[in-house]
């Protein structure tokens, strides 16, 4: 799981162009969206859907259903771990 969390953080940093942020600086359980945490927005959410599809074979058709899954790196990692092919 730790390995998956680190890998996810690295993917988010490179795919979402997060400038000057290291994986260590991302709090695994902090919210990804909104003004707290990483401050990601709806376009980032669509990009995360692509990360899940490409790297883990997980398809999320409706961005609305991703709300709880996308809450934090931790929720994402646990979802991937349970659903990956």
């Amino acid at each position, binding site marked *: 799981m730790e390995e998956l969390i680190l890998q996810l953080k690295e993917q988010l940093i490179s795919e979402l*162009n997060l*400038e000057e942020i290291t994986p260590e600086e991302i709090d695994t359980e902090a919210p990804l969206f909104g003004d707290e945490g990483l401050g990601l*927005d709806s376009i980032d959410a669509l990009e995360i859907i692509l990360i899940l599809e490409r790297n883990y074979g997980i398809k999320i058709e409706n961005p609305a259903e991703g709300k709880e899954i996308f809450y934090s790196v931790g929720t994402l990692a646990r979802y991937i771990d349970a659903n990956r092919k």
Partner: protein
Amino acid sequence: MASRTTARIVSDNIISALGFTTAENMAAMHQYKSGIALHKRDDIASTPIQAALIDRDKLATKARERELSNYSLLEQLFILSIADTLAQAGMEHPAAHTALILSTTKGNVDALAHTADVPSEAFLSYTAQRVAAYWGIDAQDTVVVSNACISGVSALVIASRLIGDGSYDNIIVAGGDVLSPFITSGFLSFKSISTQPCRPYDALRDGLNLGEACGSVLLSGNGNESDIAITGGAITNDANHISGPSRTGDGLYYAIRNAMNEAGVSVEDVTFVNAHGTATAYNDEMESKAIHWAQLQEKPVNSMKSYFGHTLGASGVIESIVCAHALQENFIPGTLNYSECGVPCPLVVSDRHIEGATSRVCVKTASGFGGCNAALILQKGSVHPQPTTLPATTECVSVVEIDNATLKVDNNIGYEATDEDKSFATFIRGAYKSLDGKNQKFYKMSDLCKLGYVAAEALLQNCINFAPEEVGIILSNRSASLDTDRKHQDIISSDGESCAAPAVFVYTLPNVVAGEIAIRHKIQGENTFFIQEEYDAAWMENYARKVMAHDNLKYCIVGRCELLKENYHAEFKLIKTI
């Protein structure tokens, strides 16, 4: 004071999935026909898609009759549409000194698919010049408006102003876009396309359908009172998000309010509202709020997207034409596929037409990426004469120039790249940091946006105080967003259409630069992005002064923002009304 010349729609044409003339399109709408159907065509999308496509065989026949084989599909459409508009006015050629305003979001972007380069055919001004030359219209009298999905309404607003102040007696406004994998893959990546025919404002709506169309109108200052008049128009920005509509509807409300004020029409005068109505969850929700703010919630509201699909740069033009004819016919079109209200602020929407209403005024709106909104007032019969507004008298507050790895503020060097690395990426990052820039979103922007964003940051760094609605942004360039367009095309060409990246696609519209600046500095006044072959500073500043007088703006950012690969040049001026 002299009164403003009233711009009237003398004649028009619509080419869409529903037909090749306005009459054919109106007849189809009366019969509740939709142009949307399931298509399996590789030249449109790699997967089956619900879309409203123009009959290509019929187009080819018409193009052959006019000997247009040397023109691209979109150029043929523009030429054929204008030919019919002129014919409807009993003309074979435009009158002398007629201007041409072209509205398109992606032009001939398909040209990128056949090469690794950026060929001249892909430039919007190239298309405009070819169409203008065909009709003998001077290059000086031709301009392109590329303001995302509000382009068509923007172009009509701009044209009515240029007729209003006597700059031109006659202007042809033509809007067109055709579909290709470039566009469909981008919208699919946004998950905004429905797998079914779209249902604007409905509880079960789940996305839009794309469509292709081309429409044109001949606007004249010498029209008859029996012609529909454009009596007001306004363009605003949400200053909220580049792809998501405002959550409050404030920007669209301001546009409706300003346009109605200009026209001198009250809520009681309005017969119906034709909104953008794309049938995405957030767009329709936002519109319902704005319509309530404008107190128009008792008036019939309709969307034409379930007939034509979302026809992008054509939508504002063709939908305004339908509105004009609907006013003439005392007809209020119903919204196809609507059944149950699904917007938070209830609207008067019906899937049935209303015939025989005494029609006077239509409010036409559009909203688009980059946070832009536009509203237009179409009016039947006599109109109250309005005073002309003279261009504002202005002074230049500051000038910023970015060129050749150097940022200059009022001719003084503000930041220079080091000799070791003069690449744009390194330079612009250094320039942003030199201005204390801390917005993480900066690093996600396209290069064109970074350029404009840094120029605006330098221009406004001295903390000028203004209210959101007191500032406008009027920009122009030659290559639109072709730098990002190339990137998007490369992704879908090499990795497949399903790999289109929303974070890239959202920047395939040049006006998103103005959107990013508007969000950063909370600017909600007029924002327009023109495409010009050569940057015409005098024309741009003169236009900005007209807008400033018109909209009572205190400040306006006016300039060029040009970037294609490592060639870039930004020149922004902040001008102030005195």
